[in-house]
């Protein structure tokens, strides 16, 4: 029996990649949240250690970033957050590199810093970025703001005049750390002017494009090989270590590997802290008539994908409801905190928390059962969402009913809570895939979907095999190398199974067409099986697949769309991620400790392609939600992370995971992504349950202390 190399420890993750003559990188980081870099002195560093400072990258594009070019490889004139890269070294051993950075002397002049997004937009706030170019599709509107997403439908704010009852409240969600088991890891080397990067990334084509811009090269001069990741959860999207590793390798003329420490993870990329003020208006019978969402997203020192987070979180906070008058004002603001970016549950976690707590506050006010209130207002097929999109394949009510049944909602709702959500997928989006017959008569699947532990190859082999009418054993997945795989937007937003299933079907049809051409028959007369290819009705014409070596089918799937940033109208998502959760808790009224007695998630999965994989993803996603609900939160003091280790920042241990149940609802024509559906709904359901127990909490995480502070009866 061959054991899975992930179990034997032989599996090679990003941090295990190595090549001959490789050096090890370390980064010198700023101790200040905001300071001028007056001087950098590397003269004490031993000669054989390669150093990288601003002078070494002066010939490159000064800044990079996936949405706004605002981040330097190493600091230029100022540092903008505690942990900002100031210089880097590459040495023969990690230890030597560590010692070398301690020998670099940097002279700083501290400057005032700002950590709150509202404060940061004030006239007196220190300006983070001076002279950067904000792309035309973004709408900065005020000091330190990189984007403001607005949506207006119906009468907008004026719609509240039609409400009998209006409730409003403020909600907050803390920053969180991804805590992938494997840290960020990148290996870069140059060969004949071509840059090769072996890196754990969810976004190989973004990294290739952005490295090309940074190093002023054609994209063809850059090759990204995706190393399988020991977890990512959004942390390994867009460029992280790739620029500094490539710049060090360029100077050293040697391969350079960079691997972050656990402490560095906490200052590299986190989940956006966010604050919401929400108003919801309804008629006395519980029909929603107006909603306004006022949101502030703290994106830290660099925008990363913050503008997209503020857009998606802005409309996620509307919820999957039929509301004729909606106003969303969602702002993404720079502060001197470490940057925030993509995080499993992408922006929906924050938006759904605020939105679904608000739905329960309205239910309380109206004296209507929260399930009844939701069902009365949920989007159905044919309804318009606030973006103007007409709903199809709406399963919100099915998900919600399943969740409610699982906690015996009808048997009384004391200590119970529900939540339901709509989450968009990356739109517009494009996926290419190829199916090639190799010399051994196997089908090689060329796909850029990255493996971060979700094992996409199982689902994609199944899809290709089914589309071709072959057994999955005949399909192998080729190397994830930008030299070999067709373009794919990225492996994010639970899009891969959906996009790939469509693209693979196309590629299979294309391959069948090409095989049929060989036989000079119409594709519908082609018979394809594990034994070979043949023609219907003529068994003697059958040929083994090895006779068809080199034939290749290509498939592309594109979803158009996008929202107008000023009105929020357009296509937010080609299809909707839909999920609900229910929870039952018991709260110790004297200590505030919450125990989860029942927890259920109901996720719309479309057609499930890989049942064990789907179940594992939803279980992991649920546990992620429990962590966010109960105690995960990064604490900052003057911009410094004060719990940047796994003793002070806790994630759930196995004993913190209650018995929980779930449904993967099947139906429809498509496969739906489900890798992050439980993350947003679980905290909201738990929060609503804690509120139903007499503690109307408003912030995540729901710490024991915050539960006591929120007690209705003291």
């Amino acid at each position: 029996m061959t054991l899975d190399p992930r179990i034997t420890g032989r599996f090679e993750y990003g941090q295990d990649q190595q090549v001959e003559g490789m050096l090890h990188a370390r980064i010198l980081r700023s101790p200040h949240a905001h300071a001028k870099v007056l001087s950098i002195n590397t003269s004490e560093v031993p000669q054989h250690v390669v150093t990288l400072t601003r002078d070494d990258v002066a010939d490159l594009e000064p800044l990079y970033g996936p949405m706004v070019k605002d981040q330097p490889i190493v600091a230029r004139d100022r540092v903008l957050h505690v942990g900002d890269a100031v210089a880097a070294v590459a040495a023969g051993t990690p230890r030597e590199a560590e010692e070398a950075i301690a020998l670099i002397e940097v002279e700083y002049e501290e400057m005032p810093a700002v950590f709150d997004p509202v404060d940061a937009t004030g006239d007196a706030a220190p300006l983070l970025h001076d002279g950067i170019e904000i792309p035309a599709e973004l709408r900065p509107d005020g000091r330190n703001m990189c984007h403001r997403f607005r949506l207006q439908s119906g009468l907008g704010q004026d719609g509240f005049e039609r409400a009998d009852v209006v409730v409003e409240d403020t909600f907050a969600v803390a920053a969180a750390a991804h805590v992938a088991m494997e840290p960020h890891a990148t290996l870069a080397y140059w060969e004949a002017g071509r840059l090769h990067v072996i890196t754990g990334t969810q976004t190989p084509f973004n990294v290739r494009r952005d490295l090309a811009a940074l190093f002023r090269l054609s994209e063809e001069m850059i090759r990204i090989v995706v190393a399988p990741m020991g977890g990512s959860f959004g942390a390994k999207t867009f460029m992280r270590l790739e620029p500094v590793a490539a710049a060090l390798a360029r100077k050293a003329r040697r391969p350079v590997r960079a691997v972050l420490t656990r402490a560095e993870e906490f200052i590299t990329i986190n989940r956006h802290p966010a604050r919401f003020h929400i108003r919801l208006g309804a008629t006395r019978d519980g029909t929603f008539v107006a909603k306004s969402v006022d949101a502030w997203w703290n994106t830290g020192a660099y925008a990363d994908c913050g503008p997209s987070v503020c857009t998606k979180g802005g409309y996620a906070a509307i919820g999957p409801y039929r509301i004729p008058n909606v106003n969303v004002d969602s702002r993404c603001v720079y502060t001197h905190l470490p940057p925030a970016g993509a995080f499993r549950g992408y922006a929906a976690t924050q938006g759904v928390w605020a939105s679904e707590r608000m739905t329960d506050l309205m239910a309380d006010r109206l004296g209507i059962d929260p399930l009844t209130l939701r069902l009365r207002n949920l989007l159905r097929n044919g309804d318009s969402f606030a973006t103007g999109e007409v709903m199809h394949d709406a399963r919100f009510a099915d998900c919600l009913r399943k969740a409610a049944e699982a906690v015996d909602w009808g048997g009384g709702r004391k200590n119970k809570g529900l939540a339901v959500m709509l989450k968009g997928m990356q739109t517009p989006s494009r996926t290419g895939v190829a199916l090639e017959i190799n010399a051994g008569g196997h089908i090689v699947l060329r796909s850029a979907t990255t493996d971060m532990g979700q094992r996409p190859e199982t689902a994609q082999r199944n899809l290709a095999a089914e589309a071709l009418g072959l057994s999955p054993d005949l399909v192998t997945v080729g190397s994830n190398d930008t030299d070999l795989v067709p373009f794919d937007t990225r492996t994010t937003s639970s899009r891969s199974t959906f996009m790939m299933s469509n693209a693979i079907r196309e590629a299979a049809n294309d391959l069948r067409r090409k095989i049929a051409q060989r036989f000079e028959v119409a594709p519908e007369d082609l018979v394809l099986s594990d034994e070979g290819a043949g023609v219907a009705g003529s068994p003697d014409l059958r040929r083994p697949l090895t006779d068809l070596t080199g034939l290749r089918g290509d498939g592309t799937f594109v979803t158009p769309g996008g929202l107008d940033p000023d009105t929020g109208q357009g296509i937010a998502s080609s299809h909707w991620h839909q999920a609900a959760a229910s929870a039952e808790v018991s709260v110790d009224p004297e200590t505030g400790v919450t125990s989860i007695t029942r927890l259920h998630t109901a996720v719309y999965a479309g057609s499930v392609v890989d049942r064990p994989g789907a179940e594992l993803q939803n279980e992991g996603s649920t546990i992620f939600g429990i962590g966010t609900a109960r105690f995960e939160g990064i604490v900052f003091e003057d911009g410094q992370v004060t719990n940047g280790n796994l003793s002070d920042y806790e994630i759930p241990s196995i004993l913190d995971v209650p018995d929980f149940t779930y449904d993967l609802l099947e139906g429809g024509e498509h496969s739906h992504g489900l890798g992050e559906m439980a993350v947003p709904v679980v905290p909201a359901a738990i929060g609503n349950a804690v509120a139903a127990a007499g503690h109307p909490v408003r912030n995540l995480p729901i710490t024991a202390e915050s539960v006591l502070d929120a007690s209705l009866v003291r």
Partner: protein
Amino acid sequence: MEEPDWHSPATIEEAVALKARLGDTATFLAGGTFTAILVANGLIRPHAFIHLARVPGLDRIEIGDDLRLGAMVTHRRVEGSSEIRQSSWASVANCFAQVASPRIRNQATVGGVLCDADYASDPPTLLVALGARVRLRSPSGEREVMLSDFIQGHYETALGADELLVDLVVPRPPRHVTYVKFRSRSSEDRPCVGVAVAAEVDGARRCQSLRVVVGAVSGRPQEFPRACAIALGDRITIEVATEIGHQYSELASTLSDMRGSAAYRKRLIAVLVRRSLETLAA
């Protein structure tokens, strides 16, 4: 940066002689769960480690009139010892079993948790309530110190630069002993508050002696004998339990950390002391 020297003495005498010679530049290393964090974070940079794994006798568990636990006995061994579990000291095993996770308990030692004097620990709180003492050896001899005097504050102990904690001595506990670990976050977390109660009750359930110790709320375990005095000589009632809890809450100094604010800890002390004593009242 120099690599620290690594010493593996073969006897206690050799270990303390080394320490006396190297002084504060050397650190004894037992399980390493705490020391490794300090070194990794650059909080200490010892020039030498004196590893105690090869020193014979430090891993003994002895049960007689007292319970004696050698400095190198791991948490897991205390937890899993059927001898301890079946003795009057079962509460000690139960307390060590509540520390962190099995992986940590396999490594962390009795001597380590006492010498680290990290406020957010479980065993010191119970052991102070049980009147435990530590035996310290140096080249010039041996002394015993009450644990309540040994732990002086945040990461500070009475251990001399040339001394080694060789074992922990726990006298036979009274009939009623409890330790309540209150966690505000994960099940593997350190305590937000720990409350130990050690009480002797007579046949009529009258309270003959009572020690209540609260831990993990400030630099060292805290005890207020005067507050306990009202319980003596009679059965403990709910009212008495509530009053002692209230007084502990008032008297204890508390700090704020990731596990809870100082004010939250004050509220919890009242609740947890009362609840601990209520089991005596029942």
